[in-house]
């Protein structure tokens, strides 16, 4: 029983980590908080609902969700961040992305209603289970876990090994210097936003499939928690976001196991405040961005 809870926690944590990677990527490169990120995650679930309702099969729905979420990321970058790139514009950027988030929530409630919408997949995909060593594990959850881990591994390899990653890290280090070396900073920002939002959209799709419905308030509850997880793991650090996400997922599952579920939200934010007090740079050092300016 406890082992099953821990596995559920790891699956939950992998979704947290997927969102937190997006926060941390944007924060690492632009040094700004993207408050619209959680709402793109929320929309991921609804795009999946809509595309399945239009008759798309699951792989197509996944593809559509990834692309639309990524494109929305470009919109957020254009409206909310393009004009506010100076190092001390972080208040303006936070405010504009927050406003975008409000608009996204309100519009999605206008389209799909304020209640949650059920997602039904054909066949037994949502309930099929395997048992490994006496543990019954739903295949879908296992798939979510594996796919999220693969996505994060791919992102990590791209950022640390590829030439695109080198350009991203250069922009994170100093946009001015990167521009002097001939890097198109705007293009890099767009790519970062596309990838971050794509991952958020896929996380939203995973959550909708796992719980069986898409709801318009997950951006504010689930998505915002990933922001705290990012700070716990270390702002701007991809590994930190992964480990922080898994850690919080497991702790939260254990809290539910012991009947403390209601206070799990509070616990995450309190943990963040405590970690800021003890280790301001989070549990891990920074990978992308060295300097975190005020």
């Amino acid at each position, binding site marked *: 029983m406890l082992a099953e809870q821990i596995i559920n926690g790891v699956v939950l944590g992998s979704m947290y980590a997927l969102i937190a990677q997006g926060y941390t990527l944007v924060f690492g490169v632009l040094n700004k908080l993207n408050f619209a990120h959680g709402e793109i995650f929320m929309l991921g679930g609804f795009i999946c609902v809509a595309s399945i309702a239009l008759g798309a099969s699951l792989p197509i729905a996944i593809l559509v969700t990834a692309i639309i979420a990524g494109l929305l990321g470009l919109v957020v970058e254009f409206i909310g961040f393009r004009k506010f790139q100076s190092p001390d514009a972080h*208040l303006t950027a936070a405010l504009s992305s927050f406003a975008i988030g409000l608009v996204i929530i309100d519009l999605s409630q206008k389209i799909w209603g304020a209640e949650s919408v059920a997602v039904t997949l054909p066949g037994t995909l949502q309930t099929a289970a395997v048992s490994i060593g006496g543990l019954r594990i739903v295949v879908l959850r296992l798939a979510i876990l594996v796919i999220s881990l693969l996505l994060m591994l791919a992102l990590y390899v791209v950022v640390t090994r590829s030439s695109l990653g080198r350009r991203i890290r250069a922009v994170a280090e100093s946009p001015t210097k990167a521009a002097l070396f001939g890097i198109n900073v705007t293009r890099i920002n767009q790519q970062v936003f596309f990838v971050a939002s794509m991952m958020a959209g896929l996380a939203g799709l995973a959550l909708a499939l796992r719980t069986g419905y898409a709801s318009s308030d997950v951006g504010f509850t689930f998505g915002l928690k990933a922001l705290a997880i990012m700070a716990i793991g270390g702002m701007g650090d991809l590994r930190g976001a992964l480990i922080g996400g898994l850690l919080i997922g497991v702790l939260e599952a254990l809290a539910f196991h012991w009947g403390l579920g209601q206070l799990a939200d509070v616990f995450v*934010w309190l943990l963040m405040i405590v970690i800021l007090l003890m280790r301001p740079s989070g549990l891990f050092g920074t990978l992308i961005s060295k300097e975190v300016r005020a």
Partner: protein
Amino acid sequence: MIQDYIVFVGVNIVLAWSVYVILLAGSLSFANGGFMAIGAYVSGVLTVKFGFPLVIAALISGIAAGLIGVLAGFPALRTRGIYLMLVTVGIAVSVKAVIESIDYVGGIQGFGGMVGTTPWHVVGLVGLVGGGLALLSRSPLQRILDAVREDELSAASLGINPIYVKLTCFGVGAFLAAVAGSFYAHYLIHVSPDQVLSVFIVLYAVLGGTNNMWGPPIGAAIMTLTPEFVRGLEAWRPTAFGVVILCLLLIRPDGLLAFRIATTRTKAVAGSKPKQST
């Protein structure tokens, strides 16, 4: 009806000022809705269950919220500015979760029985806070705040303790939000966690512009009254105000958060080029 308008506009004006006070030292707070909820619930419990008079209960709840704000803000401020924003989001979420899980104050159903706010309370509060801010804007303290907001490092080199200044502003902002929240609750009679936890408060403050103390009340009044008089706007409130804020931010790239008055005054005195801050 006119009573409703006075109370709601007044409460929102004080809430907008509570964000403005924190912004004066250069931090953006998403937590004021949480502080407002703390004020509403703490003072509600004090008046309903313990029979305290309203004004005393409002003051106690304000002090409680201020202390919570200072305690939570301290670790963030010790490090770097952007972390305070994260902590404020955390406070807002935690306050809601905590209130919902305490059965003593009704959980998700909300808490009722608070009465006693008259429009005069609210008018008096607006007058007091407005008077205080007007005095502040002419005092040396305003220049200390300007210094911390514009450049923490050089402020520190002049012997100002930026952490102390920011934390004080955060505490005062929390206090104001809680007092406004307690008057609001005692007018509505019944409050629920969702109702008192408004995400719009930040927008109230910045819509009118934070150049000086008169911007936030104008923004709060516009945002409170327009939906009452324009049919159909109430349903589209988040979208409408989100789009308006975005347009204003995009049309004036220096931002609604540029402190024009303060910087022009510096220019007149020092003859230096004003530095835009956002």
